[in-house]
């Protein structure tokens, strides 16, 4: 079970805004901890993996339910 320490709700927002919010939220948690991002813009399925890859964080899982998404990002550094 992934245990996020913080949840970021980006419902209604469109990328890149959720990504900018993720970037800010990840600074609130420590290395090793997990951030949960709630989103409904499918674009996040493209942008989050790219953001994680470029910024060196780990995208642990993406769960899709009724066109809504929950993404789990582990802060690596």
């Amino acid at each position, binding site marked *: 079970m992934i245990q996020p320490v913080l949840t970021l709700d980006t419902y209604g927002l*469109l990328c*890149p805004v959720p*990504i900018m919010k993720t*970037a800010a939220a990840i600074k609130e948690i420590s290395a090793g901890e997990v951030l949960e991002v709630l989103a409904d*813009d499918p*674009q996040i399925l*493209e942008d989050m993996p790219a953001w994680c*890859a*470029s910024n060196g964080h780990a995208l642990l899982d993406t769960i899709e339910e009724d*066109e809504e998404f929950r993404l789990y990002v582990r802060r690596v550094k």
Partner: protein
Amino acid sequence: MSKPVKAVGLLSGGLDSTIAAAMLMRQGIEIQGLTFYTGFCVVEHNRRSKTRKRKKPVRNEALQAGARLDLPVEMIDISGPDYLKVLTDPKYGYGKTVNPCIDCRIFMFRRARQYMDEIGAQFMFTGEVLGQRPMSQRRQPMNVIDRDAELDGLLLRPLSAKRLPPTVAEEKGWVDREKLGDIQGRSRQKQMELAEEYGIEDYPSPAGGCCYLTDANFGRRILDFFEYEGKENLTMDDVMLLKIGRHFRVKPDVKVVMGREEGENKFLERYAPGRWRLETKDVTGPTTLVEGHPTDDDLRQIAGMTVRYAGSKADPGTPVACRYEETERILEPAPVEEAVVEEWRI
């Protein structure tokens, strides 16, 4: 070993900025990518408005470039009143439409310089090519931009570096000028060769118009807003609406925004509070928002126009629901002549 020199790179995600980054990485420079969110990005907006089921995913190219080159990318939100001032009162005027490119660059570069200092980077760079764009990438405007953004020689343009005076990065020996580019003009040949040399594949085609401010239709709408509503009143909400649908100026104080497809209609619904909202009853048609103070007569004509754009399924006389907050009226409008519609079109 001494600490690597660090540079902030303004990444659009296009081929030029990707190559510029790769060129410096090969010289051992540590790069922090930076991209700005202005609120005027066409790609972002198209996703916002169009129906969500689309075949080809749209990508944020700056993030993709970061992932491709394995370098971090920071995205800074500059949308808001300060950036809008760049649009409404540009010191250096507009390009072909309402694109205040010189002022916009100054604004971005200033912010980038600040970011550079925040993260302790030594210099910054862009993928700009001398002579590639008419407004901001000629020698003289480049000098103006560098001066007004107070860059103090800290901006390197690796692709054209040999054609430009040496910058601090070259003078201090952080980068080897000999290994930088001498590209000039609009041809992309040299960039393609470098892409191959650096093993960069899968880059976006040079799209050009990725910014709404260079779009002629959008330009007309902005100028209409400036004329009838006053440029000092422009907000980001207005900008969102200006980017979407069909626009008609019915009277100086009555403007109509009409969705062109389901995605736009949905998007417009969010802006209904405080505006009249018209929709055909029983048959599908556009969502029409009315800004300003329409009279009964105006509403009737706008209802007629709504039926007109509902397509073949709507007969003339199709009822139209007109709602304002809690009030609802049903109108059965007469058809509106094409010539009238054209006269109103912004």
